[in-house]
């Protein structure tokens, strides 16, 4: 059985990285007494696939993970069963059964949407102008961890939706993932004056 769980990540969990989240799922599944399926080989690993790494410090209301189970479980009881086993900061939003033969979850995600809340209000027209200027560029060469890349093609949508909110849709394909903090930096918005939430993962 392959189940797909949609979950939120908030509070202290925002500061927990992707690899640690993998372990959290593993332990939580064990606490919920789910019959996790393991890989073959010398060091069997549980078959847990998280859709897309969420950069550290951001919250989300749309994270997804696929768990493969050795045997079928009662889907209706699962949300409650999982929620009681999770650390605070992870909220179980939806549990569904998915076709075993579908490709791996991470390969199906193409984009992600983010909502940025500005903790210190700015002039919306100034922000809009900055966004327009940014989007007018054909390329936005940037450097991250010693590697240069082009941010512009990773921005699919960028808009100031109110005086304290920015909406963005960024590419989230494997090997071509846009980071909201990079966009904010390019806009000249200090990261510490924002709260970023991932709001939607978009499938191919």
């Amino acid at each position: 059985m392959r189940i797909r769980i949609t979950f939120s990540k908030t509070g202290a969990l925002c500061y927990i990285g992707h690899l640690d989240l993998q372990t959290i799922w593993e332990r939580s599944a064990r606490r919920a007494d789910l019959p996790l399926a393991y890989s073959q080989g010398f060091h069997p690993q549980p078959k847990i696939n998280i859709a897309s790494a969420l950069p550290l410090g951001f919250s989300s209301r749309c994270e997804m993970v696929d768990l493969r189970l050795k045997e079928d479980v009662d889907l209706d009881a699962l949300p409650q069963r999982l929620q009681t086993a999770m650390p605070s900061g992870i909220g179980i939003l939806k549990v569904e059964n998915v076709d075993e033969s579908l490709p791996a979850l991470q390969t199906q995600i193409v984009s992600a949407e983010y909502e940025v809340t500005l903790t210190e209000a700015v002039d919306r027209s100034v922000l809009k102008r900055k966004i327009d200027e940014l989007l007018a560029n054909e390329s936005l060469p940037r450097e991250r961890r010693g590697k240069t890349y082009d941010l512009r093609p990773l921005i699919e949508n960028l808009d100031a939706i109110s005086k304290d909110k920015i909406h963005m849709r960024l590419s989230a394909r494997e090997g071509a993932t846009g980071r909201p903090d990079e966009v904010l930096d390019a806009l000249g918005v200090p990261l510490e004056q924002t709260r970023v939430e991932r709001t939607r993962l978009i499938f191919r």
Partner: protein
Amino acid sequence: MFTSEHIESQLDKILLQVQKPGRYVGGELNIVVKDWDQVQTKVALVFPDIYDIGVSNVGLKILYDEINQREDALAERAYAPWTDMDALMREHGIPLYSLESKRPLSGFDLIGFSLPYETLYTNTLNILDLSGIPVRSADRGESHPIIIAGGHAATNPEPMHAFIDAFVIGEGEEVIHEILDVVQRRKTQNTSREETLLALAKIRGVYVPKYYHVEYMDDGTVANVTTLREEVANPVIKRIVAQLPLPPIKFIVPNIEVVHNRVSVEIMRGCTRGCRFCQAGMITRPVRERSVDEIVDAAEAAINATGFEELALLSLSSSDFTYVVELVNKVSKRFKGRKLTISLPSLRIESVSVDLMDKLREHYSGGFTLAPEAATERMRRIINKFIPDEDIINTTREIYRRGWTTIKLYFMIGHPSETLEDVQAIADLCKRVIHEGRKVAGMKVKLHAGVSTFVPKPQTPFQWVSVDTRESIIAKQDLLKRELKDRNIKLSWTEPNDTLLEAWLSRGDRRLAEVIYTAWKSGAKFDAWGDQMKYDVWMAAFEEHGLDPSFYTHRQRRTDEIFPWDHISAAVRKNFLFQDFRQSLEGKIRVDCRLNCFACGILPTFSNLRRENPGEVWKCPEVKSPARNNQASVISNQLPVVGD
């Protein structure tokens, strides 16, 4: 006063700038968060090293549960922020806060430090300072929390006497409640800080340094220790629990990778082996065991409550647990087919141990660890850990034969009267272990020799001996490095500077407090972290206070010397320790004291407890009459020697 909202919003500004921000946010599974305003007495439990090390500490977990089970009290946790976080917190004016409710430590009523080892002293000062609490006890007033500390380092509390208001000597499970009751009166009856400290000092097992006065001789040794209030005890005798209470179940599950991701169940406390170098073996007496069912049930409940992938069955000497075979059988049956690593450390060097580990095979990963400690018969007699070479060879050969490829052997250099020949024997033994292993398991066999350097600890038979000199330590380590060049032998050792610092801090007197203070002021922190230890800073601090570090470590002690820690008692008599030291000089062995009581002092000290708890829970003989036999018998002649 900072509110938790204020601290949280400040944290959001800096957490992305530090490595592993998950250390500083809390929110783990199984934490207890009570309604702050509804609970009277608030306790912050602090492990003064980083989260990654402290979060799995079992001692603090026990106290966390004990306190949180009370309706009138709450316990929260804090750890030492790593240097990057420390700098940012100071820059942004964020005080150290508890992980549960993000409240500043200065807002708690009681702060309890765990001090399992001495190299945490500078961190302790730093944490007080980062919390905005005066570092010195004498500078604290009515508005400040009471600062207590406990753990093995409290065996000699004197170097920290100026900074800790009260030390708990011995086991904390019961005494913590008595302490809480006293601290609570600060609120219910408005007692003053002074009244509170005096009330604490009257609790059995609690040492409040300010009520004791130390006079020194001209040569710097202690002349005498007197009490300044007649109500306080001298000596302060450690507390114990007669029976181990139920083990913790709901271990805190960290959200980040830490050093020990595991459930730990203490299977017994104390050790009857009497190894003379071992402080834990001397100060955790008597041996008290848990029942097999209690252990297995607790382990299962804890694994279910945490989802951890590892179970550690802890004790000082697993092989000596009376029902170890039954325990291993039950554990392997109970967890059969579950993906779980089970560790059973501190096994004796004998074939039975290999059988035990074999039964846990399904649950085992990694190597097999044994601790011969020394490699010549003379040395083994001196330290009272007598394992013939043949037992070591036969056991290690059997381990390799059954398919383990890596064995870790622990040794110590710097034992009293050790020579280069004794160290050469360590190298020879390692080579022989590998050689014999290859015969049964081929060229793939590996050996890890962990060779630490001995520090003579307070309250042990070796408290009279001096620490090996730097030159001698280096010569011995060089010999090992030269001799153990086989690519299948890995050698690890302790840097001499780390050993010397540990020795000064563990053997120091009250005058060392100023050295610690100055070293911390000059930047000493995280002394247990080799790369952080600032040797020059410590040397300058000694010099500034006109103290010679070698006074503490490289001096022949008079047999009648009053040690700085003599007014603190682990209930093991000094006279017993001295006799045992004498036996050591004569190369005489004392057997496991379950076989023959050597009258260490535990039974007369705790005779009432023993009478109330008869039977096999304790491994000491029953207390039958008030009269006791002070004659320690020595039966070394009956012991097997090499070749027997």
